[in-house]
């Protein structure tokens, strides 16, 4: 019994450090795929780790009029995002803290991190930070309702808002071709692109554009602060990728009762799916252009419409079943 508990604890710990370890690699894969498709050599896959190590070694320059918020925000953002990323079931559904991995809690954690980032962006008082924060908030107000609708659709389908429960449900019924799920998949992908500042919404590779959102907010950060914020954004990418995997492609994930062997298979499957997802993201980013900021409400409106349709259809299917 005690040994079992230790194993459970270890598995949860493995998941927690696994997301942190793999995050820079996932970003490296995205960048590498993009570079190769543009016929460039591209940075090595491990560049993300090197960037973080370099930033951690460097001195952190802080503006004179920065408040305590500016200094504490990076650690808080990193902590909130890490907790959120560690809660999403990756290789096994029956982990120790899976009762805490509620989708609503996840949205709340990410929302808190975003609010802190927006505040930190405005703290120093540069105009770029202000622009970035206001745009980030605009995107958030559009993306979050869509996210909640998606969550509710899944909750209706699986009968629970616990991620592990939803994953178990879809492992048990893999062939459920449901139109509402397809719609919420599209909606969740759009939300994920917006939340991660990916290409149709924001350009992650440059901080020299007037239309930048995420990069504008963190323009004032340097050194270890920047390292924490960058790590948090890598983690967020992993979080959304593994959320998509967990909800829509959970095959291979170890069920609650699996032992160490099941976990190992789950870990392999998850890593493969995660890196595959990162490669797909790279292909997607190369194939389309960034959108004008004023068209963003339309783009995120699609996510909202799809979320709403999904929930309507889910209700319809439910009503028909009764």
């Amino acid at each position, binding site marked *: 019994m005690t040994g079992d508990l230790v194993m459970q604890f270890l598995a949860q710990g493995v998941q927690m450090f696994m997301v942190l370890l793999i995050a820079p690699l996932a970003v490296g894969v995205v960048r590498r795929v993009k570079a190769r498709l543009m016929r460039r050599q591209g940075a090595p896959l491990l560049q993300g780790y090197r960037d973080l190590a370099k930033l951690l070694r460097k001195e952190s320059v802080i503006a004179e009029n920065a408040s305590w918020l500016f200094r504490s925000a990076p650690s808080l953002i990193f902590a909130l995002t890490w907790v959120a990323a560690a809660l999403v079931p990756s290789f096994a559904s029956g982990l120790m803290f899976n009762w805490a991995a509620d989708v609503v809690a996840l949205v709340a954690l990410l929302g808190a991190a975003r609010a802190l980032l927006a505040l930190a962006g405005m703290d120093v008082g540069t105009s770029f930070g202000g622009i970035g924060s206001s745009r980030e908030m605009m995107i958030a107000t559009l993306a979050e309702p869509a996210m909640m609708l998606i969550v509710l659709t899944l909750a209706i389908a699986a009968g629970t808002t616990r991620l592990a429960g939803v994953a178990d449900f879809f492992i048990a019924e893999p062939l459920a071709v449901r139109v509402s799920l397809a*719609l919420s998949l599209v909606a969740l992908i759009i939300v994920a692109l917006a939340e991660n500042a990916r290409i149709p919404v924001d350009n992650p590779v440059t901080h020299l554009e007037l239309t930048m959102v995420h990069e504008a907010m963190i323009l004032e950060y340097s050194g270890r602060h920047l390292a924490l914020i960058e790590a948090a954004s890598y983690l967020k990418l992993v979080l959304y990728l593994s959320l998509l995997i967990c909800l829509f492609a959970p095959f291979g994930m170890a069920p609650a009762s699996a032992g160490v062997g099941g976990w190992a298979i789950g870990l392999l499957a998850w890593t493969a799916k995660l890196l595959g997802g990162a490669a797909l993201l790279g292909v997607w980013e190369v194939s389309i252009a960034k959108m004008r900021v004023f068209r963003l*409400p339309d783009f995120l409106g699609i996510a909202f*419409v*799809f979320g709403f349709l999904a929930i309507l259809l889910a209700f319809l*299917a439910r009503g028909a079943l009764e």
Partner: protein
Amino acid sequence: MNQAYEISHLLAGVMLVTSFALLYQQRVAAVLNTFAAQSITLALAVAWAAWSQDRPDLFITALIALTLKGIVIPVALHRTVARLGIHREVEKVVGVGVALMVGLALTGLAQALLFKVTHGTASHAREELALALAIILMGFLMMIVRRNAVTQIVGFMSMENGLILAATGARGMPLVVEVSVAFSVLIALFVFAVFVFRIRERFDTIDIEALDRMRGDRR
């Protein structure tokens, strides 16, 4: 049986999504391509119904949908657009966001309505009918929010797509009616096309706003 039902539900759902895409698209060419995609999905849905319910006459319906509305009409409209030289952005009465929200409200309305009206009937037909009614209403909406005559034609045709879907779900429409509807739609296309050219000749634009001036009660 359940699988058959899931797939027909999926196809009908895809058609509804293309209806929303029609409302969202900005360019005439993109609207026409989306319409072609919707018609092809309709053909697939009808063919699936024919295969899974063992009703071979529906294959003819599917074939008509595929050739006429999936290929002939979009190609004809593409040519019209090319001849008129109007591949720029579509002018709309309301913005995309508002149109999408109204579309959502209409979808909700269609479902609420059908659940009231068809209480106690088979659930499969009911869901399909709700989706079909939503597509029909979206076709109406498209005709209302678009000012360009070509996109109004597309709205009309997509409404007709919804009707065919409804007829497939309700196990009703006889083949004769089906064929005559298909041909009347084709004739409607010719009439529309002639009108579009005449409007253009007369007013130098196919923005139907120009027709308002003809009424004479402005000014």
